[in-house]
């Protein structure tokens, strides 16, 4: 009886939940559900206004598909490094975990840097937020996606910093896993955006 109570006390930090899933994990999944509607609305706006700009620059003259393919690959690889980080956390190798988390953050930053360069060149070719429907819908959609990637990079760096301070105990993988869910979601959204905005023929 006493052991059961003691076990109950040790589990006080991880309360029993009805489904057996951790509260924060369920929260992240629900949050990602709402983000589906958020990006869905922005992507729908883009699709509704596709091919309806009255003046140029037009997408077919502006996009550099090979360039964006490379940066998409970079983001995709960052999901791989995220998985490796989680695996390292499961193996209780915090140093490796930090390494892969930093790599994920670095790849994410490279992606953002690539977008900054790409958008600057678009602007230099005359495309702006207010120029036409393409500029409006493209920059707002990809801009919000980029903001989400940036938040993700901040999360990765926070996890690394917290781990250095000893804030992540060995075997505690929940935080990494939840950050991973967010990161993979942002990556999947980019796959959709890349396909719908860049790859579909105009």
């Amino acid at each position: 009886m006493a052991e059961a109570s003691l076990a109950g006390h040790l589990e006080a930090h991880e309360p029993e939940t009805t489904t057996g899933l951790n509260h924060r994990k369920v929260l992240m999944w629900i949050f990602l559900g709402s983000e589906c509607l958020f990006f869905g609305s922005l992507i729908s706006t883009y699709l509704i206004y596709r091919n309806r700009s009255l003046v140029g620059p037009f997408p077919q003259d502006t996009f550099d598909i090979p360039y964006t393919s490379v940066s998409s690959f970079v983001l995709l690889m960052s999901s791989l490094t995220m998985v490796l980080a989680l695996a390292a956390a499961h193996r209780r190798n915090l140093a490796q975990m930090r390494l892969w988390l930093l790599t994920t953050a670095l790849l994410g930053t490279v992606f953002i840097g690539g977008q900054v360069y790409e958008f600057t060149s678009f602007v230099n070719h005359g495309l702006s937020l207010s120029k036409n429907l393409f500029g409006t819908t493209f920059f707002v959609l990809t801009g919000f996606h980029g903001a989400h990637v940036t938040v993700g990079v901040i999360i990765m760096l926070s996890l690394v910093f917290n781990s250095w301070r000893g804030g992540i105990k060995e075997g505690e993988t929940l935080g990494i896993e939840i950050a991973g869910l967010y990161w993979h979601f942002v990556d999947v959204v980019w796959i959709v955006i890349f396909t719908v905005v860049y790859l579909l023929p105009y």
Partner: protein
Amino acid sequence: MATAEHTTATSHPKHRRFGGIWSWVFTVDHKRIGILYLVTAIFFFLVGGLEALLVRSQLAFPGGTVVGPDTFNELFTMHATTMVFLSLMPMSVSFFNIVVPLQIGARDVAFPRLNAFSYWVYLFGALLLNSSYLFGGAPNAGWFGYANLTELPFNNATHGIDFWVLGLQVLGVSSMAGAFNFLVTIVNCRAPGMTFMRMPLFTWMTLVTSFLLVFAFPVLTVGLIELMFDRFFGTNFFNPAAGADPILWQHLFWLFGHPEVYILILPAMGIVSDVLPTFSRKPLFGYPVVAYSGVAIGFMAWGVWVHHMFTAGLGPVADAVFSLTTMLIAVPTGIKIFNWIGTIWGGTLNMKTPLYFALGFIAMFTIGGLSGVMLASPPADWLEADTYFVVAHLHYVLFGGTIYGLFAGIYYWFPKVTGRMLDETFGLIHFWLMTIGFNLTFAPMHVLGMDGMPRRIYTYPTGMGWDLWNLVATIGAFTIGASILVFVYNAMSSVRFGKRAGADPWDGRTLEWMIPSPPPDYNFVQIPYVHGREPLWLEKHPETGLGHGHPVPVPIAGGAPELGEYANGGPTADDLGIHLPDPSYYPFIAALGLALTFAGLLIGKAPPPSWMSVVGLLCLFYGVYGWIFEPVTGY
């Protein structure tokens, strides 16, 4: 168990404590947060009511001169925005907060600090929106803000629309944070044995409403972002000169807007579904059907939005399809009404105020539903749209429906929250005065609409045949106002001097009536095991063989003081070895930071962000990081 208790008690970490008003500002207790929501929502109900009385004063006589046309536009815009976002929704959330954890046998919601954050963001968003009155003028383009009337070329005399766009985004964060919290709570924090089909109906409707909130608000947010970008950064989302289509706004808004009205009505339906069984002394008729109908309404809510756009010129195919789906959604709604009637039928009715409001709900909401079916037919709608017929419909469902349901909830759960009964005589005066006033106000509007009176006009000429019913409606509106005064008096005096209520003044059937009134901060001494639907009823009736032998309070109809272990304060959480979350100031700081970030956009468009936005962002980061890394005492 006793051994572990003593071990825990002596090795217990120090608690964070705040005194006085700070204990309210930094609270993370769902019951206190619920009270904060309720008081604030009732305050804004009065604000919205005042705006309505000004509208009705202006329209009492033809050629009215109470307010001018611009002020009139602001008044009807703010009346609706205030009522929907600042009063009705938060009042529902106040009940989610106070009641749902008790009904599912939990000690608090899944994320107590996120709960506090939701409240403070709501308050700051409400203040941001209303501050528009002080800074040049309130929003004036209706609560639905159609583009491109809301675009800069057509709406730049004041910054009202900017306040609207920013204020609603802030409020959206609050609603979504709350919805996330209640979803995880209901999915993950139920007492052992409480399957979904054993949950009280109010908790069921909270679940469905939370799903609607989570999926509908992002669509509104995107619409608001697009409008904000048009006004602040010169984008072309709703600019026809660039080839854009303002109809996009309508689609985005109503894709949100229709689920929104179900967000408004489902909690009230949940309250009615809990009140009727208690006061009919019978179980809810057709419980599974009522639950599934709520879920069906939640799904079907997404397929009807174009019925708000029948007159937008989308063509006969679109109109026909959405007419069909709209009529279909009346089916699960009607099913609920028949089940409620089935609940009352053959029951031994305890005619108290909560039951009066629940019965009033059924009658008034049904009338609203009938006018709704009339609006579901596009040929009819083409004559009725943008007339007072729609105003009549929406008020019968939102006032006769939601508000009556919420008042039923207030009278029902007031004893649980405060430990005192609301005065029954004043309750009935409130009910009858409100019912007479409400019907005097809105029934004539069906006629006014049929006689061609358009909406949103600040005055009308005499000789249209509208004079009499407008005057009657205004008299009705002031009668409603009087009934609200009766309620406010009742509430304020009963909190101090009301008859004491025991744990179970209504002979209740669900878990919240098992614990003292007001509840201790830990809610349950021991989390109950749930054996079936209406678990308290099963405990009270051991002959069913399904009770667990939990001690139950004696139902006290007259509200006599409860004796026993809680007479002298009762055990504290520490005495019982129960870990409760400590209060925290980070949710408050984060909420303040969020509001300042948005408000800062009003004093200087980014880039670069204004000083207010920078301060806001720093505050937000400090609040969020502090929250994440807060030392875990008491959690």
